């Protein structure tokens, strides 16, 4: 994938000079994010770097104080809320609720931007597609409150898929999940990217980002310190500079993807 030349228009997310304020303090400042359609872009960085704040701006939910968020050359904040919700879906971190809704009803919420208040969401074809893509078709009739954490996360993911977005933004989608559930979520993200969706996910687990993301954006103190394709960007030098941790980049014997090995704890 070639780097974008200035001024050209590229399919996908293109955010420039993004600045988000809390009071008069800048949580995010001068941030550029480029996330092409058809790829998974991981947003990484230490705790408190501003990842969640930036994602809300990138998804078109929280308007930044300055900057432009373009998706396929359209300003997300110039669209109506409903138009925006048809292009961009957002999966929040830790959506804890015990709502007495079936999985199909929860996923059906994703049809709201398309149907308004009066559609019959549960029987809609995109809901069935979303359930199948997320690999949870067999859960459709279950009560959401009875599901495991990994199942819930895939239901919430399916709800976002039912929006049929071209841009999918996720805040720590693998948080609190066991390894099988983490990989299940990442598999869904890869499937979407293969269908041409621009996927942007905050991942605090660097090894997951190294193994599964096409591109990384490294955020520290509200600024981008590095961005680009995963392998040339996520170097041991960068990891030491950003996290203060020494690491070695190995190579997976089967896939050839980078594998991060962190140095042993000091004796």
């Amino acid at each position, binding site marked *: 994938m070639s780097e974008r030349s200035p001024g050209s228009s590229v399919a996908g997310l293109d955010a420039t000079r993004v600045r988000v304020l809390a009071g008069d303090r800048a949580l995010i400042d001068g941030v550029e994010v480029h996330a092409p359609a058809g790829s998974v872009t991981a947003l990484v960085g230490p705790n408190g770097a501003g990842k969640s704040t930036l994602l809300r701006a990138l998804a078109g939910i929280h308007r930044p104080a300055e900057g432009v968020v373009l998706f396929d050359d359209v300003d997300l904040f110039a669209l109506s*809320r409903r138009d925006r*919700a048809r292009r961009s879906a957002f999966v929040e971190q830790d959506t804890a*609720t015990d709502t007495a809704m079936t999985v199909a009803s929860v996923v059906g*919420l*994703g049809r709201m931007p398309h149907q308004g208040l009066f559609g019959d969401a549960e029987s809609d074809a995109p809901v069935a597609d979303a359930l199948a893509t997320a690999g949870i078709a067999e859960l459709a009739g279950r009560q959401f*409150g009875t599901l495991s954490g990994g199942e819930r996360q895939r239901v919430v993911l399916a709800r976002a898929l039912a929006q049929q977005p071209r841009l999918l933004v996720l805040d720590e989608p693998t948080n609190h999940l066991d390894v099988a559930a983490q990989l299940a979520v990442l598999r869904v993200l890869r499937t979407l990217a293969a269908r041409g969706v621009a996927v942007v996910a905050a991942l605090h687990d660097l090894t997951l980002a190294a193994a599964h993301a096409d591109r990384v954006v490294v955020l520290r103190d509200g600024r981008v310190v590095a961005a680009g394709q995963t392998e040339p960007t996520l170097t041991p030098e960068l990891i030491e500079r950003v996290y203060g941790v020494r690491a070695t980049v190995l190579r997976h014997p089967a896939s050839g993807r980078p594998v991060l090995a962190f140095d042993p704890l000091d004796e």
Partner: protein
Amino acid sequence: MTRVAPAVAGAALVVALLLSLTFAITIGPAEIRVDEVWASVLSHLGLAENPLTALRDGIAWELRLPRVLTAAAVGAGLAIAGAVMQAITRNPLADPYLLGLSSGASLGAVAVLLLGVAVALPIAAFAGAMAALVITLALAGSFGAITPTRTVLAGLAVSALASAIASLVIFWTATGDSYREILGWLLGSLAGARWPAVAIAFAAILIAGIPIAIGGRVLDAFAFGDTTAASLGVNVTTTRWVLLVATALLTGAMVSVSGSIGFVGLVLPHAVRLVVGARHRVLLPLSALVGAIFLVWADTLARTVFDPRELPVGIVTAIIGAPVFAVLLARRRGLA
């Protein structure tokens, strides 16, 4: 858990409500048969000759009918208000009572009744409810983002203060017999419900209750929090304020005709949710029907159990509602 088909449940509840209204009118010191109830109604609609004596017709048409209709409308309104509050604050304990709306409305009503503030009663009650709501949310520091715990704590404080001020006003101004009337306000009573009360309560249902129920799907989006609602294209702040004002209107109107009746808004939406699930397009209309039926019978008990003395209906709803709530809590824990 098995869930009941909403359409079946709705049809059954409509029939149950009509039967409840009819039979509740027949119950009381003066025996009035079901056919006499209908004859009286038809004659007043100009559709039949009235076979009843003037006295019996007066009891049916002037006393009992407006009273059961008011009870039904108030029960429906409070149940809708409670379900909406629970959804937009994401707090299962929210109801008009807990967030200070009822107490604020009572204070507004007491101010009109006892201090002679020259405003129409429902408007004063609505103003009181709105004021209580605004103070509650301001105290919770949650304009914009409402945190469930702080909202309830703030609501408790506002509720206690409004009740205390109302009681103080009553203490200074009430004499002799008016105490009983005042107690009715604080504990809730439908003893004074005549046709004007029916008009107020049904107007509130038409203006606020039905629009809320029709647009109920938007409340589903709030189940997963504000950010998710926003990501689904919902204008979270505007939607929340419109719904809160509509709820205040509903509560204010209901309190102005019945005083503050507790537990209906808290317990009934939970019970209905257990049976048909949390989708608001189903939950709101069914809660309204169950609330209507429940309050018709609660009020019938209130006026007959210690006949000729009347209990404030709020005591009946609390005596029934509190144990039911405890059972619901236990079941919830069993499910989790």
